[in-house]
């Protein structure tokens, strides 16, 4: 019998295979906060799946744009996105890391210009994808603990 951890949704997005413990960060990265009060969000953490432990996020009535989704790759490189319409998966894709990461990660260097009051967004250049290594565009310092530096 199939065990139902999270109820199926009619329309919206299911983000599956999120690195365990990172579901809330995924929501934060997607900017899903109070302003999405009208859509139902369900979260399942530490779900045992076929490929091991994972987190799952379901966002009803919202189809997440691939561009937004790529941000997720920073903390959940194995995540998959399922777009649901009328209970059917109509689109499915894996996240991929963009070449530049803008406005998502904060630079750990306190003396970096991007940490001041300048009218700029933080910007990181991806140096390698596996393992993920990113470098501040401004001060060129490499981010050491990316997950903890997410804005």
């Amino acid at each position, binding site marked *: 019998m199939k065990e139902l951890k999270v109820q199926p949704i009619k329309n919206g997005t299911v983000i599956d295979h999120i690195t365990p413990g990172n579901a809330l960060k995924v929501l934060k990265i997607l900017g899903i906060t109070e302003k999405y009060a009208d859509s139902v969000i369900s979260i399942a953490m530490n779900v045992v799946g076929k490929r091991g432990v994972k987190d799952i996020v379901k966002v009803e009535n919202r189809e997440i744009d691939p561009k937004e989704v790529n941000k997720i790759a920073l903390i959940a490189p194995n995540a998959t996105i399922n777009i649901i319409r009328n209970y059917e998966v109509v689109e499915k894709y894996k996240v991929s890391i963009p070449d530049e990461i803008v406005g998502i990660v904060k630079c750990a260097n306190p003396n*970096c*210009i991007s940490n*001041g009051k*300048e*009218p*700029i967004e933080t910007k990181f250049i991806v140096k390698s994808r596996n393992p993920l290594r990113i470098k*501040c565009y401004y001060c*060129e310092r490499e981010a050491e603990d990316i997950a903890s530096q997410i804005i």
Partner: protein
Amino acid sequence: MKFEGRDVISIRDFSKEEILHILDVAEEMIPIAKGEKKSSLLNGYIMASLFFEPSTRTRLSFEAAMKRLGGGVIGFAQPGTTSMQKGETLADTIRTAESYCDVIVMRHPQEGSARMAAQFASVPVINGGDGAGHHPTQCLLDLFTIRREKGNIEGNTVALLGDLKYGRTVHSLAYALALFGVDMIFISPKELQMPKEVVEECREMGANIEVKNRIEDLGNVDVLYVTRIQRERFPDPGEYKKVAGSYRIDMDILKKAKEDMIIMHPLPRVDEISPEVDETKNAVYFKQTFNGVPVRMALLALVLGVVK
């Protein structure tokens, strides 16, 4: 190779061919830099010299470079005199300054400031040092000095000595020397060793690198590049004294070195080099300081598009 309108933020923005071209143009500038030949090459151009942190040497040599070429200079030497003090952003200061000038030279205490300024300025920005970040004109004048004194950059063995951990200028220099296939010896106290990734990168670029914690013998060294070991790096003043003392260049060390080894230092120095060394023909650090002028002249003329 196109220089007109380009920013000079990091030495990494330039290829080996471009670096050599800058040095060639600098070579032609020497008689003008010395005042032996008059020039009106940059007549009618204005350079804004924005020094948010004092650096007499860099500022004076940029201003001298611009004026020797007949150009004008506006600007400030310390932030106390600017509206930054009133809380203005660097971005706004840059947008203001660029409407008065053709090129901006800036020094700022924060890393990445020059890169950001270049985003906001439509005129070229030349980085005169951004915090512990880049100082590309220092790097270029170091390369220029090696080429003038040794005839070539390639084929030399260069020892970088002192604080190799902090301050990206010495990292940029190592990168630039590796670009020219120069073999290097990194000599520093254990606490101030060259970061591993810099050593690795230089090796990947094909340079032979030796890492040492003592001066020992400098028998095969052609260029000895000395940097300052800052007191602040050591919580214990006794430890600082011990370390600084064992890295001091004096006549005894010179005796064991190649006769034509040159000694460089970005200055200011404290007591890394004994004053008696100044009188030897090995000491080229004052020439190195002068070389900042022709190199900066070359950059100004190139980014303004007056020299191709």
